């Protein structure tokens, strides 16, 4: 880290520390918990989010964080409530062809878009064709591989064809990127559609008060809410005002002054205090994808050796990372997949507890002996020196520096190289590193594991095999998982993949990414979907 960066972090740290101390002193005392009661319609909430968004066109944009908001504006054709369980959304029922190349949907006849236009088969066809139209510049094209066309069977029946079997289609329909948008709205609003999307969801975009303030208003016609949210009708809340504020302390202050009723990512160090205060509630949602980890380079440097990779795993305390960097708002990671993922393998607990002595023994046995003068291990005169390449900024820099200190105790000299995200990606593509950084937020293990560990996915563009792992066994398992349509079988396959990755110490899992939200106790019944995203369909404010 440069001196200038250190100074900036130090100043920021001091400011945040003082700010937090004062906030803590000014915090209201703990009171009684939320009283039970019937939902009360009406009211408005201000949701202060941690990012700036300007594109809510779900068929174009790709961002897990924008999806939090898009979920209030759109409905999918199908909802996913379990890995292999889908329930009706805008489609009342569906049939999947035996070879998984055709999907036929019977659509609801009572749903309308926010602009009053009817939702029908033409709208579904329009959506797919729009995504694939190069003029749209959609980043959702990858969700329609081998698309063969859409047939409008009748006004409320639509058949979608693919030229090859497509196992993940229903999952991608439920994933948030393929919700129908009003064709009339798209044509009428042109480029402004990104800011003023027209969907069928429980709220519609009323206005942008300024570049950082968007207003969602209740959709009074809404009566097609999914059964699992237990409220099919128009939402109770009248209005959701979205404010985009990137500074976490400011978001916390807005919560404390009552200016906001829902905050994304309050400062980590304040979460415990908010949890202990009955006037507030905190929701921590674990992301379901690939955990935040350090991929180890199989192709160059000392990390080619299994003992070095194992030692890196034994020498790090994930618990300390979770405590010192995240104030226990994240779970220490144990394996490649998040514990929320449906294919998570419990066997990961048997690997890599924090055991620096064992790390030392393994390295000793592998010929990496400690130089008593430098305190760095050496083999054949070469010091055990590794380059950790990662993006600067929170939390990557802090985690990297803490890990560096722990590895140093085991005699491993890790040089942390902090840089921009783009520069780090270039280094990963070039393979000029021993330790990298990766974490992915997808739901299906195929999306996570195939792209990160198949031998055809060596880093570059959308490929994330940063460790340059080439293994026929691993490839075969990943290919089998991609082809299989049986969830139980896929679970077994992906558990074997996790075992392979840990047997070979392919990565150093560190922590599970979480979505954190805080609100006053008077905001009731905010629900979270399978992906941990907030849903305001049945939320209400107690007076």
């Amino acid at each position, binding site marked *: 880290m440069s001196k200038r960066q250190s100074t900036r972090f130090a100043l920021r740290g001091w400011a945040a520390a003082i700010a937090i101390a004062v906030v803590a002193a000014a915090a209201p005392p703990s009171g009684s918990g939320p009283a039970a009661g019937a939902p009360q319609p009406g009211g408005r909430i201000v949701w202060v989010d941690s990012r700036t968004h300007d594109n809510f066109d779900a068929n174009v944009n790709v*961002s897990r964080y924008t999806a939090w908001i898009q979920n209030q504006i759109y409905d999918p054709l199908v909802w996913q409530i379990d890995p292999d369980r889908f329930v009706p959304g805008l489609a009342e029922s569906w049939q999947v062809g035996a070879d998984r190349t055709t999907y036929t949907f019977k659509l609801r006849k009572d749903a309308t878009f926010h602009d009053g236009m009817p939702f029908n088969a033409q709208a579904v066809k329009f959506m797919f064709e729009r995504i694939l139209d190069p003029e749209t510049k959609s980043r959702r094209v990858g969700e329609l591989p081998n698309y063969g066309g859409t047939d409008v069977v009748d006004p409320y029946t639509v058949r979608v064809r693919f030229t090859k079997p497509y196992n993940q289609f229903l999952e991608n329909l439920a994933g948030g990127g393929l919700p129908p948008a009003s064709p009339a709205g798209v044509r009428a609003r042109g480029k402004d559609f990104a800011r003023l999307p027209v969907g069928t969801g429980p709220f519609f975009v009323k206005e942008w008060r300024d570049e950082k303030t968007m207003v969602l208003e209740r959709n009074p016609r809404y009566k097609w809410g999914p059964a699992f949210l237990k409220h099919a009708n128009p939402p109770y809340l009248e209005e959701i005002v979205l404010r985009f504020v990137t500074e976490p302390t400011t978001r916390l202050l807005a919560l404390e002054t009552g200016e906001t009723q829902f905050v994304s990512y309050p400062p980590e160090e304040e979460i415990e205090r908010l949890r202990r205060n009955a006037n507030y509630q905190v929701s921590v949602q674990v992301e379901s994808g690939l955990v935040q980890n350090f991929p180890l380079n199989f192709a160059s440097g000392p990390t080619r050796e299994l003992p070095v990779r194992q030692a890196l795993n034994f020498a790090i305390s994930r618990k300390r990372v979770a405590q010192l960097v995240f104030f226990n708002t994240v779970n220490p990671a144990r394996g490649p997949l998040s514990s929320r993922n449906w294919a998570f393998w419990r066997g990961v607990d048997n690997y890599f507890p924090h055991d620096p002595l064992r790390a030392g023994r393994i390295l000793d046995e592998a010929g990496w002996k400690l130089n008593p003068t430098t305190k760095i291990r050496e083999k054949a005169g070469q010091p055990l020196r590794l380059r950790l390449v990662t993006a600067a900024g929170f939390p990557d820099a802090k985690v990297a520096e803490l890990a560096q200190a722990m590895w140093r105790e085991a005699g491993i000299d890790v040089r942390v190289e902090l840089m921009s995200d783009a520069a780090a990606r270039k280094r990963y593509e070039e393979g000029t590193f021993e330790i990298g950084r990766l974490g992915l937020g997808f739901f299906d293990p195929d999306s996570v594991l195939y792209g990160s560990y198949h031998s055809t996915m060596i880093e570059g563009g959308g490929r994330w095999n940063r460790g340059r792992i080439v293994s026929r066994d691993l490839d075969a398992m990943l290919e089998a998982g991609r082809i299989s349509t049986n969830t139980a079988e896929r679970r077994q396959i992906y558990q074997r993949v996790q075992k392979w990755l840990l047997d070979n110490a392919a990565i150093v899992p560190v922590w599970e990414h979480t979505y954190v939200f805080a609100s006053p106790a008077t905001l009731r019944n905010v629900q979270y979907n399978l992906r941990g995203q907030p849903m305001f369909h049945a939320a209400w404010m107690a007076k």
Partner: protein
Amino acid sequence: MGSFLLRRLWTGIPVLLGVSVLVFGMLHFLPGDPVMMMLTQPGGQARPMLASEVSDDLYKRMQQQLGLDRPLHEQFLNFLGRAVRGDLGSSFRSDLPVAQTIARNLPFTLELAAAALSVSIAAGVLFGTLAALRHRTWADTALMAVAVSGVSMPSFWLGLMLLLVFALELRWFPVVATQGWRALVLPAAALGFRAAAIIARLVRSSLIETLHQDYVRTARAKGLPGTGVVLRHALRNSLIPVATVVGLQFGNLLGGAVIVESVFGRPGIGQLAVQAILEKDFPVVQGVVLLTAVTYVIVNLLIDISYGWLDPRVRYR
């Protein structure tokens, strides 16, 4: 005056051209392929494209749509040609016209910078004058101590402190509002405090020097009232170096607005630029930088013009 203006505007053109070349070059030579970033951005809640699924055809089509398939010099000339006509292209990310995006954000930054500048000039001139008139007294020492702390205090920290005291404790001002004058007070104070401190120190030293000039002594000897001597004779003559600094400070305020906009969650071109740089949204970055450069050139021109008003001896040639 007319020829002076024309000449100054003419000399601004190479400045703008140089800035454009620098920004264009830097963006293109830094690592990161915007086409791949758009197509394969990780972090989607569903599966984005994997590179193996990005066919050459799709890649080339996207590259063509963004105009990135042309030689660099052609891309640059196209950018310049369109910029002259007021067309800054479309954002890679949102596909919205850059000019429109900037136009939506700019008023907030200008409003903030103007408010901060007003605060800093008013406070800087007032406290600088008071310190000069109370030279070598406790008041002078106290005011200059505040000024030194103002120069050394980061606006990020000051912004949070102001929020804690005036928004959380006293509840006088909102934390995250963006509409109305009350929403502007704390951000303007946070942004303008440093500039106020610089101006105050400069006014003080300049005024102390002027107050020792013969013509001030003469004015006093003629029996003119003290306030008149200070305000009409000494202060006005002390303001020429201050005017230069004010011009420079306006540029600093535009730059510093990035931090203050972030702390207070305000819209503005600072926030827009940071986001665009992180996402390699070339057209937006180029548009914002060009606009900032134009603003610098114009503000400095206005400052040059103000010299003549402040000191009639200054003539424009």
